């Protein structure tokens, strides 16, 4: 099992909504309904889904920022799901995060050098300025950037700062939450190239969360498609992208506008029609799902016993 970087088993996360009545407790939201997967060392693992599908919750749990209601999460072979935050220092050295909003994730009142050095200071290192310069160089920023504030940078540069911070403790795993979806198109390619290069050069394991299947396709080798707190399909990115098996994946692929296809006549009307056709399949499938939900929720790895017999069984991760 040494080649498994992250192992997630049957993770369930329920939230209770704030109560709206004195007598009744708030209703329960099932953010994750039993999610299982493995990420091998050196793998580039993508998680795709739309807003509210549970991908952010999953990511927070993997990063030890949230606790699952039940299930197990192992990072580097160590169970993290039952540990309180103060006992997760080993995890911080191994796994780091890059956030979506490059402005929101940088403290506006801190200088760049303090921001980048934060994971180092947290681990008790002092006098990190040479490491900060090294990291700035690695992400393509000038050393002078160290003395500035985040608002003095453009969106793409801020995301570089965020990446530099994540790399500071020399982690083995990089978890990126929609790292390019707030960036301008002309800058997005730069950041994707940078991530690509860093992951390769530092032989990192990458977990990449996005709503955009085409970005995941570019970055990752394996993808898990999430919908309503479950992984509905998982497999090599090429397979899932080119021949999506689950209706929901089909819907995602069908709905995404692509420049070349659009120029070849795939107009908004065609997009909509294809999306609806895929959705029709999807809603049939999920109504069957709902019937036997408590019987066998969804362990995506083995073929589920009953609920999805008629839909093609999700693929295994390699």
């Amino acid at each position, binding site marked *: 099992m040494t080649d498994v970087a992250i192992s997630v088993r049957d993770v369930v996360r329920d939230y209770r909504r704030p109560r709206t009545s004195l007598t009744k407790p708030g209703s329960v939201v099932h953010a994750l309904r039993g999610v299982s997967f493995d990420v091998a060392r050196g793998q580039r693992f993508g998680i795709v889904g739309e807003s509210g599908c549970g991908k952010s919750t999953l990511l927070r749990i993997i990063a030890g920022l949230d606790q699952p209601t039940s299930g197990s999460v192992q990072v580097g072979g160590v169970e993290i799901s039952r540990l309180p935050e103060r006992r997760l220092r080993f995890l911080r050295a191994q796994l780091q995060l890059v956030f979506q909003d490059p402005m929101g994730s940088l403290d506006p009142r*801190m200088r760049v050098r303090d921001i980048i050095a934060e994971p180092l200071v947290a681990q008790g290192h002092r006098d990190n300025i040479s490491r900060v310069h090294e990291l700035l160089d690695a992400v393509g920023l000038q050393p002078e950037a160290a003395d500035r504030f985040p608002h003095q940078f453009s969106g793409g540069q801020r995301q570089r700062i965020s990446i530099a911070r994540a790399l500071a403790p020399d982690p083995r795993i990089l978890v990126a939450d929609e790292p390019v979806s707030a960036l301008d198109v002309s800058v997005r390619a730069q950041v994707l190239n940078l991530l690509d290069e860093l992951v390769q050069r530092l032989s990192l394991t990458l977990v990449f969360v996005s709503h955009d299947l085409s970005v995941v396709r570019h970055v990752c080798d394996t993808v898990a498609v999430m919908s309503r707190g479950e992984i509905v399909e998982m497999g090599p990115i090429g397979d899932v992208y080119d021949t999506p098996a689950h209706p929901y994946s089909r819907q995602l692929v069908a709905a995404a506008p692509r420049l070349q296809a659009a120029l070849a006549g795939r107009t908004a009307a065609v997009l909509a029609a294809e999306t609806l056709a895929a959705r029709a399949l999807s809603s049939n499938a999920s109504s069957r799902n709902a019937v036997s939900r408590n019987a066998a929720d969804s362990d995506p790895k083995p073929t589920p016993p009953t609920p999805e017999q008629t839909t093609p069984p999700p693929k295994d991760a390699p």
Partner: protein
Amino acid sequence: MNRLSRGAEAVMPPPGRRSRAGVEATLLVGGGIVAAITVLALVSLVWTPYDVGEINATERLATSSARHWLGTDKFGRDVVSLLMVGSRTTLLVGLVSVGVAAVIGVPLGILAAMVPKWWGEVLMRANDLLLAFPALLLAIMLTAVHGQGVVTAMIAIGISSIPSFARVVRSGAIGVMKTEYVVAARAAGRRPIAIALRHVLPNVGSLVIVQASVSFAIAVLAEAALSYLGLGAPPGTPSWGRMLQEGQELLFVAPRLEVFPGVAIALAVLGFNLLGDGLRDHFDPRLEDRR
């Protein structure tokens, strides 16, 4: 979700935020008023035009003249000298009580935002209890125990200002705790105390400054009220509030005895409010020009 193009919003300065020049002007005016009052208070330690302890029956209720710029009160004391000496009490009460309130209220607010929600609620309900307790009653109680005096007034006003600090800071801190940079700090392995000091405190700093300037104004007024009721500065210790009280009976004979300390209090409050606003914006790094 994609926040790519905010178009015009990205161009315009955020609403409610002023230009650099506007901030500098505010800071200058507010700082100027506060500095002037401070200088007056310091000068009064070594020199005043007349001795305020000296009662001069021959010059009672004199109007403005070359000898007494703002006239004299019913004991013949020089109003300018009284205002100068009184500013000491006012400044001292304002600063100390705000200090007491901030030193207790700010950590309390941050704590209430960072502990589990249930404990935060308990802390805030206790805070509300204090808020509901009238400051005046507290002052009377403290006076009964410790005797009348400026120190008693300062503590009473300070304690009664704690809840407003705690409340404002908590709501701000809850917002900061939800930001991604705090999540990032947690992911970096930062301990809660480090997060409180490095991220939460600096980012609620602007709220604290604004609250401090408001509380200072309230404290100056509260001191005036307490002195007016005879619970603050003891007779013989000039303060602006006491001057108001003593001038009250002569309101129709010599209204200027009310006007001058009143204007002084208003100016001090204005000065500290402007200074607070100016400082808040001055220390906001985002106000610097983008490069």
